């Protein structure tokens, strides 16, 4: 049976991913370089796929589904960390890049706790 602290961690990770997505969307819209906008869109889609897995875990109706969803999430943590590095290289403004990476780093820590 999943615990309250696991539920809280999932909810917080969902919020962190959504914050990162919103910040990326702002960058995509404001980018003057089409190829950068496309690369950032792909990073957004990566984050969206993590979000889907988090929501899948949250919606899980039984312990086995929850355990499988959690395992899948935690096995992809290195992928999230790779996304951090890729995004840092794409966003020229250091402060904005730092903000996005901060959200993703928060999500990584939270997913590890689930």
């Amino acid at each position, binding site marked *: 049976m999943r*615990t309250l602290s696991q539920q809280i961690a999932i909810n917080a990770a*969902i919020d962190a991913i959504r914050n990162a997505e919103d910040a990326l*969307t702002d960058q995509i819209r404001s980018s003057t370089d*089409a190829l950068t906008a496309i690369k950032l869109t792909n990073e*957004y889609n990566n984050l969206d796929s993590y979000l889907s897995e988090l929501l899948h875990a*949250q919606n899980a109706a039984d312990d086995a589904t929850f355990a499988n969803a959690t395992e899948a999430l935690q096995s992809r943590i290195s992928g999230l960390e790779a996304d951090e590095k890729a995004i840092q290289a794409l966003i020229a403004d250091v402060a904005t890049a730092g903000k996005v990476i901060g959200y993703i780093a928060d999500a990584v820590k939270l997913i590890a706790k689930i």
Partner: protein
Amino acid sequence: MKPSRFLSVLGLACSVAGCVGMTQMQHTASEFDKAVHSTATTELVLFREVQAGECNDQFYLQAYRVAGLGTDRLDPSQIDLIGGHCTHQELTDGELAIRQKLLSTLTLYADTIQALSEGKGNLDPSAKEKALAGDIKSLATQGKFSSAEKSGAAGLDAAVSAVVHVIIDRRVYKDVGSAAGAVQSELTVVIGELQAENRDDAQGLRSKYGSVNNEMVSALKLACERGGAECFFGIASAHTALNSVIVAPPDVEQLNKTLDAVLAANASLAQPKSTGAVAEVSELADRAQQAATLFSASK
């Protein structure tokens, strides 16, 4: 609508429609039942939007990859233009079915309240109602509504079981007040779960909408680098797709406030004031109608 106006509207409606013999409680319970059903229907619209959102997201991501814009290229032969095949990950069909049963718990309960207001406390539910209640009870017994512990409160499965008990055996609580009072805490748990699910669903829908939007924007940036007709028609197509195909995320907080109104109405039915539960049920009816309008507009 203010309670005083509602009462005079009630009086007018009854004189026009012939409500002879219908007490205020019966009318209030009937309005409560209709509003709960309407709220449940709106919840189902949201659940379907979540699944449709996933399908749209998958389709446009495939299109992005076919165009060579994604992280890997997809052959055009692999894209499903009709959109028949879609994998639901966030809300699977099995999970949707369980949520539908959770909503049925609320609607069957509201039906019970109406039956009790009509003095039918000694009558069993219909065979169909009994079968559905039995299914819900079975899921609750198996722990299917929740695999999560809820500290300091009855779990969701226990709450559902308690509400089902009132639905199946109307003789236990023969009147509206005692039935409503008996399950107020349990209804709070059920509704709390629905509200949490709604917020999560909204997050998912916003993310999917953002995904498709970003794909459109970034593709247009490329298509419009040299301007021209291709750029123009690209913008027109994106506009059409985003307005008519993709569902903009609805305001789930309005739906959640409607669910709060269900609880307030039930609390009022449990301990009615001198004006009965008219004001709270009237508020619920208004909110249910607003939520229904909001969600049908977002389709």
